[in-house]
């Protein structure tokens, strides 16, 4: 063609500008169309980049709030454990003090009974006093052990309350964390679509007699239905929004979260077809790790073992009380019985000086000695029970301390973690990052001579919400988890 122009037309003077103008015109039209398309793609890219930033920051901020809330609750959880721990420790200390006092009293009763036995064959009157004192001491020991047993009972109640409270509030914290994560993802999607230009494609008010069947208000109302008050965990399985525009083109915006975690999917796609049958879609992806793996600091011993120790201590304490005071068979009864016999022997000795009487009071004193010895044996058994109770309490005391440095991982609120008393959360297994992606696809128009095409407009934004936050803050509240964008497809990795 150029050779033709060159050879013939360029030397021809008349109308030679016309083909050139046609060529220029075609080029201008193509350039105009390209410009329009580039502008359209650039606008879409701007929308998309803003949308992912908005979505990422919104979702990241919610995640930061979730982590701050967990940190705050964790500080309370630790405080709750420590206060309960110290009050239980104090109960154990009180119980040990009273066992010690009881043990001393029981020991004194044995000493007195022993002395009574020793002097009984010579001085039954003195033996009577000593045996009576032994009975009093045994009674004192029993009284102290009653306090010890009751204090152990209070430790049982306090320990079970600590276990159930920590378990319950931890369970609630897990639920709140999962809901918070779902809410973060939900907010990420919402902010992405709010800023992605979907709403701007709809009219403010549906014009009278037009084919539009939804306005922006309808879209806004629709987005409001994505609310924590609906469905399982506050999120419905399926959301659908459809409308027709002024040209009668049908559009639909549907996402299905049927199998999503906590009722929410990480990907939502908005598909629509316009009046010319062109297919379009906008896709939103929000990804962040699950909030279900928690490293927990727990007590050295499982709760049931701790309870077993306290119940053993309580049983031993009650057994020692029985050894001392059980009517008819306790040490007090035997000491008192021995004292009575010594008293009888004393009376005979003092009133009858006949040689036969000597044999009688000695025989009675011997009987008193045997009975007192039985009391002594029972008091000894009581001390053995006290020692058993003490051993159980000491083991309990060592078992209820936190096992630091060896966290137990819990992924589903199940054994082994929940078998122990939860002290506090050591960490949450999560990278503290959240990524939001957007994809916009628009089908080009077939203009006969030219078919326009649009590339996929993709954007992403990564937010880090670690800030300077700590799951176990030094002070409460210490709200230091904070979201900031660290990477986008535009600026790269910061």
């Amino acid at each position, binding site marked *: 063609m150029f050779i033709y122009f060159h050879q013939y037309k360029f030397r021809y003077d008349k109308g030679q500008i016309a083909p050139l103008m046609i060529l220029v015109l075609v080029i201008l039209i193509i350039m105009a169309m390209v410009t329009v398309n580039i502008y359209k793609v650039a606008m879409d890219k701007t929308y998309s980049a803003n949308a992912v930033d908005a979505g990422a920051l919104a979702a990241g901020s919610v995640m930061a709030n979730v982590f701050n809330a967990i940190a*705050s609750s964790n500080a*309370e959880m630790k405080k709750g454990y*420590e*206060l309960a721990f*110290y*009050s239980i420790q*104090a109960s154990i*200390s*009180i119980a*040990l003090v009273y066992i*010690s*006092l009881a*043990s*001393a009293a029981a*020991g004194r009763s044995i000493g007195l009974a022993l002395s009574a036995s020793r002097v009984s064959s010579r001085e039954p009157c003195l033996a009577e006093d000593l045996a009576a004192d032994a009975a009093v001491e045994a009674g004192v020991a029993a*009284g102290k052990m*009653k*306090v010890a047993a*009751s*204090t152990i009972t*209070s430790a049982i*109640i*306090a320990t*079970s*309350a*600590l276990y*159930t*409270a920590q378990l*319950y*509030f931890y369970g*609630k914290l897990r639920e709140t964390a999962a809901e918070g994560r779902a809410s973060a993802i939900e907010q990420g999607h919402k902010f992405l679509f709010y800023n992605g230009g979907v709403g701007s494609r709809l009219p403010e008010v549906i014009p009278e007699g037009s084919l539009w069947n939804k306005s922006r208000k309808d879209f806004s109302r629709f987005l409001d239905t994505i609310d924590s008050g609906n469905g399982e965990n506050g999120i419905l399985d399926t959301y659908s929004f459809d409308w027709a525009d002024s040209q009668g083109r049908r559009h639909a915006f549907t996402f299905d979260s049927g199998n999503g975690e906590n009722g929410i999917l990480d990907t939502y796609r908005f598909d629509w077809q316009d009046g010319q049958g062109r297919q379009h879609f906008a896709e939103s992806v929000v990804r962040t790790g699950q909030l279900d793996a928690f490293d927990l600091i727990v007590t050295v*011993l*499982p*709760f*049931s*073992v701790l*309870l*077993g*120790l306290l*119940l*053993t201590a309580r*049983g031993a304490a009650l057994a020692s009380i*029985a050894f001392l005071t059980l009517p008819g068979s306790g040490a007090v009864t035997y000491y008192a019985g021995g004292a009575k016999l010594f008293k009888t022997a004393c009376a005979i000795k003092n009133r009858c000086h006949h040689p036969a009487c000597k044999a009688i009071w000695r025989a009675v004193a011997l009987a008193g000695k045997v009975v007192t010895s039985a009391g002594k044996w029972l008091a000894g058994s009581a*001390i*053995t029970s*006290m*020692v*058993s109770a*003490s*051993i159980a309490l*000491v*083991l309990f*005391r*060592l078992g209820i*301390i936190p096992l*630091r440095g060896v966290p137990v991982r819990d992924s589903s609120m199940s*054994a082994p973690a*929940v*078998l122990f008393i939860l002290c506090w959360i050591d960490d949450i297994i999560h990278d503290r990052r959240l990524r939001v992606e957007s994809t916009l696809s628009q089908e080009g128009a077939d203009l006969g001579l030219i078919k326009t095409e649009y590339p996929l407009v993709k954007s992403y934004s990564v937010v880090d919400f670690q800030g300077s936050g700590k799951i176990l803050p030094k002070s409460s*509240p210490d709200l230091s988890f904070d979201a900031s964008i660290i990477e986008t497809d535009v600026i790269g990795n910061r």
Partner: protein
Amino acid sequence: MRYVLAVLVSSLDGIIRRLKDFEIRICIDVIPAKAGIQARRFKDSWMPVFTGMTANLGSSILALLFSFGILSTAFAADKEVIPVPANTQEVAEETRSIAGSQLYFSQYESSLRIDQIRNFYRKVLADAGWTEKDYLGALTQGGGLKMDSAAVNSMKENLNFEKDGALLTLDFAAERTGGKTAYTIMQGKLEVSGKSAEELDFTPRLLATPRHDVAPVYPEAALISLSEGGNFMQAAYSSKADMDAVAEFYRRKMPSYGWDLVEDRPVKDVQTAASQADIEKYCPECAEQGIALPSMDMFMKELIFTNTRKDRCRIGLFQVDVPKQDQVPAMNFTNIMVDYEKK
């Protein structure tokens, strides 16, 4: 200075008592937040005294003094002021009632080592007339308590004192955390003479009143723990009542506090039992001592309420059943968790 103030306060107390026939309306909330612990202690110890009285002047003076944090110790009846070593802070305190007697707990964090803290208290408590008691030594030497030395040694760090029948114990945490030594001082006098142990309630009742009056308290239930902030409250109570009775109580009473029941979760079994193998694994000493796992059942139930502001209040109930074994009587009680969250 504090003792002088204590005298002043006791005089003020006398004046206030004389104003018994009038009505005092003290607004505890006006006490600055930084008064914190003192304000709570004040509220717990003195609110009953003020109920039914009127003396705005007296209350204002008291509130003012408390706001300066200078009357805290003077108002805590039966609690002796114990000096605190240098570089040591009180981080928490609470008062509990066991068998009708008040026990005071103060938790401290110190930069000092355990031996330095022990030496400090040995000296100051001896000066204050307290006598050190080695109860553990009495058990290990005279009482025949035979224990692994490491186990006993860790308890030997603790100190026990006695004065006029009152006990004072210093319990040290097993490890230093963040370079700090944590310890707790418990003091109080367990007065149980003249009463049988059976007729006394040994539940460690926390003497505190939740700031958030959001849920009724089951009759006779004892407050065991309380944690609260501006927009939340977590409280644990213990009751001897059956779980079903407690659940019915909350179903019936919560609406009068503006709550609607939105979820009545079914009763579920809580698996707490470790195996005998676990005992041998986690506590070989327990196995040596013949400690057996308890036969115990635990059931859980949950009621979830919301109100018009979309606040949430969960009532978690745990029923603990320990059956009678040999001579040891059965134990049945219900732990009640109240979890309030403001929207």
